[in-house]
């Protein structure tokens, strides 16, 4: 140690004695905001979080898969049939293109099947027994969650095979059956009992007979709506639901060379594309409004057109006779409602498929006290319980958007409420998280990265076979896509805060869950860390002066 001349020579680092934190009027705090993808997911998946896991690759994939499985037992199915509202809301969409969340989920789902990943019950058996009516997405989802929550679950289904609309409503070329079977198998492996071809005549009777403590109704909507169309002799008219259901039977239905599908929803599209694959030379969709107003998802319409399906907009079918249809031109009034124009034309058709929506057969709940039915669906409260204590319902038979994902979400919610009800406990509502908007992001830090597209089967083979149309991503592409995630509102350990602090007032802990901490001894509250956080995971809050 050399001699230190008084005052003009100082010891290094001695300024740490000067706690500049006292200058502060605002303090930075780390926050976890709710990303739009997660808030948009009908199944309540924490999308951003499982992408965060997936970004790590290798071991990250299983962590990601398990995080999905906490909310949704069907990653591989979701990765194929979900209409992914998460991507519609994705903040990256405002930067370049939304993250291909759905394709990553499919990759993870397929990984789960390929590697035989399994899940276990989370708690020991509760001794309670729950009946689930309907082995569709909602019922199986509920069964899965209830089983993990320790309850003994039995599933009755009127149909010959499990899966409900996933099997009988969605064509193979969108959802290969081996994938569906594998994911359902995983649920049954949790000890869920499944009884097929099991009609429920009266739910109350079965509830008592089976000694069930609670029931979840999820029978879906399998009855195709009929519209009155004057029909002459020999007109082959059938509804889309039965057409699609019959595809699971032994011999495929005979539709003839020219098939007309009446309707504008996804089911109409499925019917038309199925008809094409069954050998129809012409498959024409007749819809009374314009393409813009079609309920069907745009990408499905696209795929259908690619496969040679024809569309007839602004048209209604007024009469069916033999091989002919009479079609009337419509026009939209100012409210956007179609009005007849009186202009008629004829259309050749060997068969007419009606895709005008579905209804539920609710006879089995007749006479359940307190259980209310409105517009052909069962009313439930916010806990998914019907007017009859202990009987819950979800999926297509309750008022909601009718998609697989929504149904799966219902299953999860119902299961959690049923669990709470069985334990006669209040379900603690999850804490309200501030939403992570695009405005919270500092996008300069994100590299330009175009979305990666999934491979598609070429049109020729799509017109003749039921092979899956949309392929999956290979590992590196899936990883790339996962890493396009902006991690909105949640720290992803980019070290920016640690680096940009002029006062070294951010401590790097290096942990996975809590990577950093603020050193309020020195933080002057300049707010650079918050301003430069790429994902908006830091908030400046006023100090009490």
């Amino acid at each position, binding site marked *: 140690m050399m001699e230190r001349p008084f*005052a003009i020579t*100082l*010891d*290094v*680092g*001695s*300024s*740490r*004695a*000067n*706690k*500049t934190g006292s*200058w502060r009027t605002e303090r930075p705090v780390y926050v976890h905001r709710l990303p739009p993808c997660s808030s948009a997911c009908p199944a309540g998946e924490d999308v951003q979080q499982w992408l965060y896991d997936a*970004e*790590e690759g290798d071991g990250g994939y299983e962590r990601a898969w398990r995080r999905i499985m906490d909310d949704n037992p069907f990653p591989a199915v979701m990765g194929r049939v979900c209409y992914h509202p998460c991507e519609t809301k994705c903040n990256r969409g405002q930067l370049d293109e939304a993250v291909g969340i759905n394709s990553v989920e499919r990759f993870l789902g397929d990984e789960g099947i390929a590697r035989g990943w399994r899940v276990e019950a989370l708690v020991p058996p509760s001794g309670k027994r729950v009946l689930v009516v309907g082995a569709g997405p909602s019922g199986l989802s509920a069964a899965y969650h209830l089983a993990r929550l320790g309850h003994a679950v039995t599933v009755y289904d009127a149909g010959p095979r499990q899966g409900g609309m996933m099997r009988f409503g969605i064509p193979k070329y969108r959802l290969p059956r081996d994938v569906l079977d594998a994911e359902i198998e995983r649920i049954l492996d949790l000890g869920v009992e499944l009884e097929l071809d099991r009609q429920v005549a009266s739910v109350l009777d079965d509830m008592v007979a089976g000694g069930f403590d609670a029931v979840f109704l999820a029978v879906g909507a399998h009855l195709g709506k009929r519209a009155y169309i004057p029909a002459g002799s020999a007109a082959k008219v059938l509804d889309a639901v039965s057409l699609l259901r019959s595809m699971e039977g032994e011999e495929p239905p005979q539709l003839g060379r020219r098939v007309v599908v009446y309707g504008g929803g996804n089911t109409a599209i499925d019917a038309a594309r199925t008809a094409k694959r069954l050998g129809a030379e012409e498959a024409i969709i007749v819809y009374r409004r314009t393409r813009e107003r079609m309920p069907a998802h745009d990408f499905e319409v696209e795929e259908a057109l690619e496969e040679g399906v024809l569309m007839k907009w602004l048209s209604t079918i007024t009469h069916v006779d033999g091989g002919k249809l009479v079609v009337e031109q419509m026009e939209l009034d100012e409210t956007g409602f179609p009005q007849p124009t009186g202009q008629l034309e004829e259309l050749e058709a060997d068969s007419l498929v009606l895709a005008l929506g579905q209804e539920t057969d609710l006879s089995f709940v007749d006479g359940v006290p307190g259980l209310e039915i409105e517009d052909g669906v069962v009313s439930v409260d916010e806990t998914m319980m019907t007017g009859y204590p202990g009987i819950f319902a979800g999926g297509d038979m309750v008022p909601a958007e009718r998609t697989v994902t929504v149904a799966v979400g219902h299953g999860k919610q119902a299961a959690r409420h049923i669990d709470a009800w069985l334990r006669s406990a209040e379900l603690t509502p999850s804490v309200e998280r501030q939403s992570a908007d695009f405005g919270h992001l500092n996008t*300069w*830090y*994100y*590299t330009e*990265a175009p979305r990666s597209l999934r491979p598609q089967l070429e049109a020729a083979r799509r017109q003749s076979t039921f092979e899956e149309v949309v392929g999956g991503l290979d590992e*590196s592409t899936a*990883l*790339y896509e996962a*890493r*396009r*995630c*902006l*991690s909105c509102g949640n720290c*992803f*350990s*980019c*070290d*920016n805060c*640690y*680096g*940009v602090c*002029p*006062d*070294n*007032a951010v401590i*790097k802990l*290096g942990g*996975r869950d809590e*990577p950093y901490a603020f*050193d309020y*001894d*020195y933080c*002057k*509250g*300049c*707010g*650079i860390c*918050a*301003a*430069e956080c*790429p994902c908006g995971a830091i908030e*400046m809050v006023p100090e009490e002066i």
Partner: protein
Amino acid sequence: MSAEKLKLYQVGTFAVGNRLLDPEQRTVQARMERSNTLTSGHRACRGCGEALGARYALDAAMRATDGRLIAANATGCLEVFSTPYPESSWQLPWLHSLFGNAPAIASGIAAALKVKGRNDVRVIGQGGDGGTLDIGFACLSGMFERNDDVLYVCYDNEAYMNTGVQRSSATPPAARTANTKPLGDEPGNVFGQGKSAPLIAMAHEIPYVATATVADLHDLEDKIERAMEFHGARYVHILVPCPLGWGSEASETIKIARLAQETGLFPVFEAEAGEVVAVSPIRQRVSVEEYLRTQRRFAHLFGDPPRADVIAQLQSRADRNIRRFGLLAEEAA
């Protein structure tokens, strides 16, 4: 850059670090074991760009030299806020002598090390724009032309902040300072004055000259590291916004430095032996107006009457830089 190959599209190569990168590929600032050469407890204003720039540059230099570094510091904010008796914020051997002689002090240190055969120890001279471009310029030029083995780093905040924000030869046109107030017909600093230290440094044909900003850490650290690969006189000019002197938000220090680069007003480039060898292209070009609006020193340009003519003049300066250095991606490289 190997980070590219890793497809870190989430944060690319722009954030300080990333948990997915292996430690060797992260910035020095991302490391737990960074030297914090300018440590906590200093008395710099909130959001001080100079404090940030100094730690960035010196930590990078410390890493490049394995901690075998000595610094000579000119008088100015950096010196005053870092060493008020009895506390020092420095964690390396550091000497402050005078306002105008940091380069010569550094030359003397380098000469002493050379004569003692201490080839392992390297020397950094540093100061603000006033100490570097104005009062210290003769010493700097001498150090350059003798090609002394010194890396000189100028932290440019475009005025004499320590004395209360007076104009320096690095003050941009139209900027308000304590002695270029928004008075008279031509408010703010006059056009047609000032000088470019990096270009003058290049004219000495010294081994290495570079510019950088506190907004692009990877670039800054790469340049300091590169500079340390050379022997002889080297010059790195770092733009460091000053919330006090520029009248900007403390939290926007980095953003403003970024805008300065993205407008083209502050060209970021590298030169070896007097020749420009690389430029950092503008990623997302913005108008100078967007930059000017972030700082009260330019507020008079948006007053009544607004001075669209002056803003246009500033825009043309930016445009000239863009042409001159080829700062737009397609023009660059």
